[in-house]
């Protein structure tokens, strides 16, 4: 069975709300427990906002894994990239004055967190949360 994918644009902060609502709905319909659906949707909110504000816009890809046993989200942007990833994941660190707990916090809300970024190359963050 081919996995279903949904694409959500992340151009303005308004798009972040649409994307996180889609993630919450997808997680609930896949049978995630209430708190787990909120964890994943909140991670999506943080990462989506990061793509809009820090990455100057991008998109989110939502993919169901193993018939809904897990959900994978990919956030891509063509922005300036994150020069120091380790530092960006430290709680309280913010380069824009608004993202202090965003990346590090989002990482704690998911089961797997991958980040690829380089100066001038944009950023791609992929996260997975399983239903348990």
């Amino acid at each position, binding site marked *: 069975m081919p996995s279903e994918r949904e694409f959500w644009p992340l151009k303005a*902060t*308004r798009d*972040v*709300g649409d994307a*996180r*609502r889609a993630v*919450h709905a997808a997680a609930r319909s896949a049978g995630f427990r*209430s*708190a787990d*659906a*909120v*964890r994943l*949707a*909140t991670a999506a*909110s*943080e990462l989506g*906002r990061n793509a809009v504000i820090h990455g100057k816009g991008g998109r989110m890809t939502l993919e169901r894994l193993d018939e809904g046993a897990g959900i994978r989200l990919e956030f891509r942007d063509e922005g300036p990239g994150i020069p120091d990833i380790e530092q960006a994941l430290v*709680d309280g660190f913010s380069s824009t004055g*608004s*993202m*202090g*707990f*965003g990346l*590090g*916090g*989002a990482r*704690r*809300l998911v089961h797997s967190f991958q980040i690829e970024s380089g100066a001038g190359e944009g950023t791609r963050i992929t996260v997975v949360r399983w239903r348990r």
Partner: protein
Amino acid sequence: MTPRIPILELEGALLVTVQVDLDDQLAVQLEEDLGAALARSSARGIIIDISGLELVDTFLSRILAQIASMSRVLGAEAVLVGMRPAVAVTLVELGMTLDGVSTALDIDRGIARLHALLAESP
């Protein structure tokens, strides 16, 4: 025109019931509106009911913390009521414990808490 969250006045307090998922702009607008309403009215307290909110992220929790500090600066108190269990555990995992914000289970207890806080403050 930007949509706005309505602010009601009840027993000397401003009551805000958030029923929709708050987009960033709407949240910022609410903070401004509350500041203006506090300055305009004789109310010395704010109750923000978020029992309808499915999700609170770091952005919104910062706005909520700012509303609380702003109220104090204006000689008032704010109480956040009705946070859902799933939202509470997620915020704690995010590291956002909102230490400076008073909380209560529901609107009734929020009003009681507000009165207690106002009685304590000079």
